[in-house]
């Protein structure tokens, strides 16, 4: 039996102010267990990004609770939230957000450097993880010298190098072609094989369905449906 590594209960959150104020989340509850790769799907404006920001401790909900690795997030100040993020959550962004002036190895190393890891240890870990994502030979390359797929693999390496319990990915294949998208999802699925880690992927892309263990559908700030991915769904998706 695997533990819940990320749990959100009855999340309510508003965005904007005055007449433009909208309720982005209307009582969302979600739990991620270790070993799961969960897809969060929904139309634009459904609340996916807001939910991802709250689950990633980048935003504090107006109501509801979030637990990361069993730790309650409520009441933590910005520094404590940052500590929680660097120790327990890895992020992958649609537009990669790599540091253009740092090479691939240093970009990966950053995730450990912000934790205060020793430089030598961090370098060794960064090299190892870059090897895992198939970029061992490009560790000295600057992001501009890498293709989109390679940049996203560096971003994945940065997200996983700290061995965090939770990986949150925002449209990780959104800017990639099919082959690169499949390669990225294979990497994320491999991470999710670890029973102590969970991966949540926000996506519009049905082609990545076969990599997931569960799909959560969100619409208009509410989770409208959750379903386990079956073999038949995988076949339909592949077809």
């Amino acid at each position, binding site marked *: 039996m695997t533990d819940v590594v990320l749990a959100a209960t009855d999340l309510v959150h508003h965005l904007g102010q005055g007449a433009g104020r909208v309720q982005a989340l209307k009582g969302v509850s979600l739990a991620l267990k270790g070993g799961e790769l969960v897809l969060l799907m929904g139309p634009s404006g459904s609340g996916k990004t807001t939910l991802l920001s709250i689950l990633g401790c980048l935003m504090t909900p107006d109501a509801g609770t979030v637990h990361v690795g069993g730790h309650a997030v409520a009441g933590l100040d910005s520094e404590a939230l*940052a500590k929680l993020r660097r120790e327990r959550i890895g992020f992958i962004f649609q537009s990669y957000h790599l*540091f253009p002036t740092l090479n691939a190895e240093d970009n990966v190393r950053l995730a450990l*450097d912000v934790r205060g890891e020793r430089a030598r240890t961090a370098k060794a870990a960064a090299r190892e993880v870059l090897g895992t994502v198939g970029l061992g030979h490009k560790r000295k390359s600057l992001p501009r010298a890498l293709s989109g797929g390679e940049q996203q693999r560096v971003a994945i390496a940065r997200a996983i190098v700290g061995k965090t319990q939770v990986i949150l990915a925002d449209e990780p294949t959104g800017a990639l072609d099919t082959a690169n998208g499949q390669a990225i999802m294979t990497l994320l699925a491999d991470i999710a094989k670890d029973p102590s880690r969970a991966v949540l992927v926000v996506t519009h892309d049905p082609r990545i369905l076969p990599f997931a263990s569960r799909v959560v559908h969100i619409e208009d700030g509410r989770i409208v449906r959750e379903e386990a991915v079956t073999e038949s769904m995988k076949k339909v998706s592949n077809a």
Partner: protein
Amino acid sequence: MSLQFRLASRNLFHDRLRFIATIIGIIFSIVLVTVQMGLYVGFRRMVTTMIDHAPAQLWIMPVGTKCFEDPSLLDERQRFRALAVPGVAEATPLVIGYAQWRLPQGTTTPVFVVGSELRGLGLHPWNVVEGRLDDLSVPGAVAIDQTYFERLGITGVEQTAELRDRKVQVMAVSKGIRSFTTTPYVFTDVERARSYTGTPASKASYLLVRLAPEADLWKVQQGLRDSLGNVEVLTASEFRNRSRSFWLFGTGAGAALFAGALLGVIVGTVIVAQTLYSSTKDHINEFATLRAIGSSSRYIYTVIIWQALLSAIVGFAGAAGIGKIVAAATAESALPVIMTPMLTVALFLLTVTMCVGSAVAAIVKVMRIDPAMVFSR
């Protein structure tokens, strides 16, 4: 190399044009401060050069004397009263004043006459490079500095001119005794100085006092004050401070130099602040990403402060180089820009403080970053 340092240096050097503009701004600012403070140090030294070279431990002077060049007079009979005070080994008169020097060609120029007894305690020219001090005992003998040869129409010793319509002959030449007022100093015997400056025979500008061995300076000073009455008795150090205070602050010259230096600091601060702020703004996505992946505020501040320190080091190196050139170029002028080791260290600390202080605006900008923006960009 620390990753924070690497990130800072890459951020800074990434936009070379902006970096060069920043460094020029810092150099301009620090050179301005260097020149102003170097002038201040030079001025501080120049205004007390006579006091520094007088072998007196105590100076007796008319009440209210503001500086060495003050033309007030005291009664020379005070000298004998001073000699009667326990602890006083020697007390000799010093006469100063302005006079007109007539060049051999017939034109005149003002000079500042310094006359003291040629034997024993007295204010004599130093760094004599031509002639001898002993030759000043010859009637009409004077000593001048080679800096003023052209002004005084002289090219070497034994040449003659007129001082207050009396013939004088240059018998000694010094090197480096310059006046910040640009009026040349002319050294001579005390009696002749009276004659050249129109000082009555019973008057003197100062009495220079040397103490007997093991006499207590403060006790002798108090004894002289009690005994002499209507005069001031200052230690050399007190007189130096009074002269500096008058020339630097009483005349406003020091305030003007400080104001110039302050302007330099303000200009530098604004330039560095603007650069760091715009650099931070340009890299706002990166700082937001850093925050999102869990860096502490301190980690980000360190990156920004490294940028400031790097700017300070590069900027200071350039400014110090230019400062040295300015100091060398003005070394022989009436008011040299002096770069002392202490001033150099102080300027470096000022540059660092200015640059780090400039990082505040950038830090405030970073503090306001919403890390959730990484999902929307």
